[in-house]
Structures are given as structure tokens and as C-alpha cells.
């Protein structure tokens, strides 16, 4: 593989759910690239399509959900063109995924060891039982679990939520995937455990140099772990850029709103949080134009009519907002004048 290729390239991806009530465009054209050794956050509220987008990469979309357009390229291979059997071999070995709720994500009737070894044996049929068990224990140690020999024989219910999420991470990483998709891995955990899991993931990422897609609605988590961020709203990507740019110079009113509604340690203790007014879009009947327009304080006429194009507002920093289009045009005119 050539060096200049990205680990993952998602190009104008469209995912729709064909429900009895009509087509729901869960993901309406998003594009990004992810390199090895890079952590990208996907931020958005519930129903913004952030998880469905990730399921599409893993081939885990459930009926009636379907990829209806765009492309997903993983290490130069077209993921969407893979057969069912190829996708089964792909999942878990080259790209792994961990989920939101560690309490229900492990099968309650099998031991931790059984489930870990299974993940390994599925992709490496030649490995001996002893080697697989040794490798599983090594993984458990790596994710900070003690007494591994005993843990292997325990059932999920015997472990705490944080422990189970560690097991999930160990299970995801046991086949050395190049890409890890973490779908809100800390949301269901309490704050101290959240911090531990984030710390662990950061450490593992440094060790393994894998690419991580971190799906969350928590900007604090993003600041903690991500290199770049992709902000989604109603299935559309509204802003994308390096994590510092997103936090210090957000270029979309939705991102601004998210930042303002986030509690900050450095803020004055009496400062009020400012919520984003209004309710999320009805995905069955999305408005024309920019989906955020009805809730946007800067809303202009054009916003209600047409989806804005992406404007480069900095290096690798893009935003889909008519305000930025306007600024860009003004800048251009100014240049032409001068």
C-alpha cells in the first residue's frame, strides 16, 4: 500500500431508512478522511446520524437501513463492494467497534474468556486454544484488568460497568484492527470511570497507532482525546476541522451553540449555560435548505432555501454555513478591489 493513501476515506455517504412512513435520510452526504494514528470525533445530538454513519462502515446497518450513495474506502479497498462473507471477515479483524452500553453489550451466558477467545479464533482459525487464552489474558492485562486468570472464568454480571467496557475494548483490539469505532463508549459510565476509560483509550491508541472514530455528544470527551472533529446535525456534516480550531474558532452556529451549552471549569461559577433553542429536525420531513436554519439565531432567507456549500475557513477546517459563504465572497471581492 502506498504511503499517501488514507486509512479510511468516506466520500459523500448517504444512508437512508425506508420506513413505512417514508424514507428517513439518516445520513445525508458526509465526507471525511481518517489516517492511521489519528483520532476523529463525530459529535452530534441523538438522531443526528452519527452512529448510523459508523454502522455503514462496519456493514452493520440493520434493515430497513441502507447505504444509498457515496463510497467508503478502507486501505484502498471499496468497503461497500465487499460480499457478505468478506464483510464478516473484515469486521473485528481490520475494523472493530465498541458500543455505548457495556452492561448489555456482553453476552450474559458466556464467560469473559469464552467471548474474548471467540473474537480471536473467528479470525485466526489456526491458533491453538492455549495461545488464544494467553493472548486473551494479555489483552485483559493491557486494558488494566487484574486477576486475569480468574476474570477469564467470570461472567459479565460479575464485573462492574467500567470493567465490562474494558473487556469490550480488549475484545475489540484482540485482532489488532487498524480502525476502532467507539460509539459513545463512555456515555453509560459515571464520570470517574469515564475519565479512566478515556485515559486507557488514549494510551492504547499511542501504543497501537490505530485510527479511532470516536462518536459522542460530549464535547469535553472530544477535547480530551480527538485530533479532529466532525460535527453532525440532522444527518449532515455542518463543520469539520482540527480540534483546536473547532473549540477556539467555531465556524458554524450549531457548533457555537454546542460549545456555549457545555459547562466549563474555567468559567465564572455564576455564568449561565446557554441552550440551543428549539427542537431537533423531524427526520421524516426535513426542512429545505440548511437543517439547522429553524433554530439558528443568524438565520437568513437563503438558509431556508438551499443547503450551503462547504467553505474552507482554515487549514482542513470546513463549514457549511451561508455566513461563511458570505464572508468568503466579501473577502474575494475585497481582494479583487484591491
Amino acid at each position, binding site marked *: 500500500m502506498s504511503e499517501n493513501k488514507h486509512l479510511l476515506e468516506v466520500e459523500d455517504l448517504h444512508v437512508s431508512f425506508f420506513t413505512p412512513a417514508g424514507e428517513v435520510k439518516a445520513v445525508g452526504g458526509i465526507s471525511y478522511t481518517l489516517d492511521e494514528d489519528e483520532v476523529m470525533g463525530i459529535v452530534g445530538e441523538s438522531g443526528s446520524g452519527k452512529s448510523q454513519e459508523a454502522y455503514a462502515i462496519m456493514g452493520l446497518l440493520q434493515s430497513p437501513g441502507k447505504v444509498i450513495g457515496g463510497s467508503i474506502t478502507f486501505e484502498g479497498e471499496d468497503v461497500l463492494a465487499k460480499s457478505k462473507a468478506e464483510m464478516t471477515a473484515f469486521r*473485528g479483524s481490520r475494523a472493530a467497534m465498541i*458500543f455505548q452500553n457495556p452492561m448489555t453489550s456482553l453476552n450474559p451466558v458466556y464467560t469473559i474468556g469464552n467471548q474474548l477467545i471467540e473474537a480471536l479464533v*473467528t479470525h485466526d482459525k489456526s491458533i491453538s486454544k492455549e495461545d488464544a487464552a494467553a493472548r486473551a489474558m494479555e489483552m485483559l492485562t493491557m486494558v488494566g484488568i487484574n486477576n486475569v486468570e480468574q476474570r477469564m472464568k467470570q461472567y459479565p454480571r460479575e464485573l462492574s460497568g467500567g470493567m465490562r467496557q474494558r473487556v469490550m475494548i480488549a475484545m475489540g483490539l484482540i485482532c489488532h484492527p487498524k480502525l476502532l469505532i467507539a460509539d459513545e463508549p463512555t456515555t453509560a459510565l459515571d464520570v470517574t470511570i469515564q475519565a479512566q476509560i478515556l485515559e486507557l483509550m488514549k494510551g492504547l491508541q499511542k501504543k497501537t497507532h490505530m485510527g479511532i472514530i470516536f462518536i459522542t455528544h460530549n464535547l469535553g470527551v472530544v477535547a480530551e482525546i480527538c485530533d479532529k472533529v466532525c460535527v453532525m446535525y440532522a444527518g449532515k456534516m455542518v463543520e469539520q476541522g482540527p480540534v483546536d480550531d473547532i473549540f477556539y474558532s467555531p465556524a458554524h452556529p450549531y457548533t457555537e451553540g454546542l460549545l456555549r451549552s457545555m459547562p466549563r471549569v474555567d468559567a465564572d461559577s455564576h455564568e449561565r449555560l446557554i441552550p440551543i433553542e428549539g427542537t431537533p429536525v423531524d427526520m421524516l420531513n426535513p426542512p429545505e435548505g440548511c437543517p439547522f436554519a429553524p433554530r439558528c439565531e443568524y438565520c437568513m432567507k437563503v438558509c431556508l432555501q438551499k443547503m450551503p456549500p462547504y467553505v474552507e475557513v482554515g487549514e482542513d477546517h470546513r463549514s457549511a454555513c451561508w455566513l461563511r459563504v458570505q464572508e468568503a465572497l466579501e473577502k474575494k471581492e475585497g481582494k479583487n478591489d484591491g
Partner: protein
Amino acid sequence: MAKYIVKRVLMALFTIFAIATVTFFLMKAVPGNPFVSEKSPPQSVIDALNAKYGLDQPLHVQYKMYMGNLLKGDLGVSVKMSKNYPVINIIKNNFPTSAKIGAIAIGWALIVGVILGCVSAYYRGKPADSTLRVVCTVGISMPSFVMANLLLLALCGSGKPFPAMFDPSTWKSFVLPCAALGFYPMCYIARQTRTSMLDSLNQEYIKTARAKGLGTWKIVFKHALRNAFIPVLTYLGPQIAFTLTGGFVVETVFSIPGLGRYFVQSISNRDYPVIMGTTIFLASFVIIMNLVVDILYKVVDPRINLAKEG
């Protein structure tokens, strides 16, 4: 675990005692007498027979006598159907045939039912699922004698593949009774499996299993089925007991010398010891199967704690 089993066995003994008592008095409450029929013998003969079998004694004396004998393992002798033949021997002679047919029937019902239920749940809403649901609904609604007679009509007799008279020496005799007897439980198991599989296939750990890259087969039969199996197991316990002790209807249609026949006919004949013997036998069997099922729960689902319940 050992404590639990001892507790359950004691409870089982008490249950059997209660069943025997209730059956005894209910049976005696039914009017009639084993020796009275359309062509009744003279009253003097009836009196002599009653005296011989102790039926002239007051009820509580009869009850004490029966229970005393039961404790010694003596089920008495048949007074009407096979005169003076020990009830225990009736069970010994006829149970193996019933059990053989019942075991095959419940065996195929379980295997086919579970597989069809899984297929149905996995292909929910697809043609395979719809077809299976229709078949199973028909199977549950149709009495077994209809099924047995249809099979008999279609496939038995001269020039047809299966013999009309039951002959234990050839496997051919077993095919149709087993098919007829197992059809209802098969449909029931398939429906039960489908329902609980739909639930377990929607669980998060199935998503995890898919994300791990497991194949469909492993996801359905290893991860989903084991979690979905408890309701099926619950049904299976008593159903095995009922099926093994003989389906009366199927045994009659295929003229099989099984226990089911005695179980039902002893009642119309007022053959008291046979009624008691077969009832206690069936009840014990149901109780044992339930105990086995409860222990199997623990094997299937390690979260179940037997010692705490009970």
C-alpha cells in the same frame, strides 16, 4: 446445590402424596363400580367381588389400605381391565412402547421446532417466516387425532408405504405415530422459539457478536439461542412427561399397545388401582421432569441462582 435437590425431592414426595390423595377421593366420588355394567352379574357376585378387593370397606379404611400398600411400593392389581394382573406390570409392559414413540416424537419436535423457530425469527417478515407461522398455527389448532387420521388415510394400508397394524419389530410402524405425536409440540416449540429469539436477536450483545465478525450461524445458534432457550425449556419439561407416557389418541388411531390406552380406559372402567397407578406414575414423571428442567436452567443460563429461589 445438594441442599436444593434434597429440598426439591422432599417437596416432590409431598406433591405425589397430595396428588394420590386427591385422585383417590375424586375417583371414589364418581358414581359407578368396576363390576357393574349393562350385563351386570347377579348382586351376590358383585358383593363377593367387592369383598374380595376390599371395596366394601368404608372409604377411610380403603384409603389407609391403599396408602399403606403404596408406601411398600405395591400399586395393587387391576380389578377389571386385565383381571388380577399387577398394575406395576401393566406399567412395566406398556410404558416402554409409549416411551419409545414419545421420545422419538419429542426429540424430532425439539430439534425441528428450535431450528424452524430460529429460521423464522432470523428471517422475520420474509416469506419463509410467514409460511412457517401459518404451518405452526395450523399445527397448534389441529387436534392430534385429525393429524393422525390424515396420516393414516394417506400413507397406511396395502400398497402404501406404512403398515396399518402396529408391529414393534419394524421401524416403519414408528414413523407415523411419532410424526403425529410430535407435530403439535414441534409447532409449539417453533412458535415459542421464534418469540424469544426475536427478543434476544435485538439485544446489544448480538450487535457485539456481529461487530466481532462472527458468522450468522454462530450468532443465531450460539449467542441468541442460548439466551432464548429458557421459555422452551420450561415448556419442554411437562411436555416430555406427557408425550412419553403415551398419547392416548395417537395410540388408539395406530392401535399401539401403549400406556396411554390404560390411562384413559381405566377411568371409564372404574378400574381403581389402574387409575391410581397410572396417575401417580404420570405425576411423578412430570415432577421429575420439572426438577430436571430447573437444574438445566442453571446450565443454560448461569445467571440463574437455584439456591436462592425454591
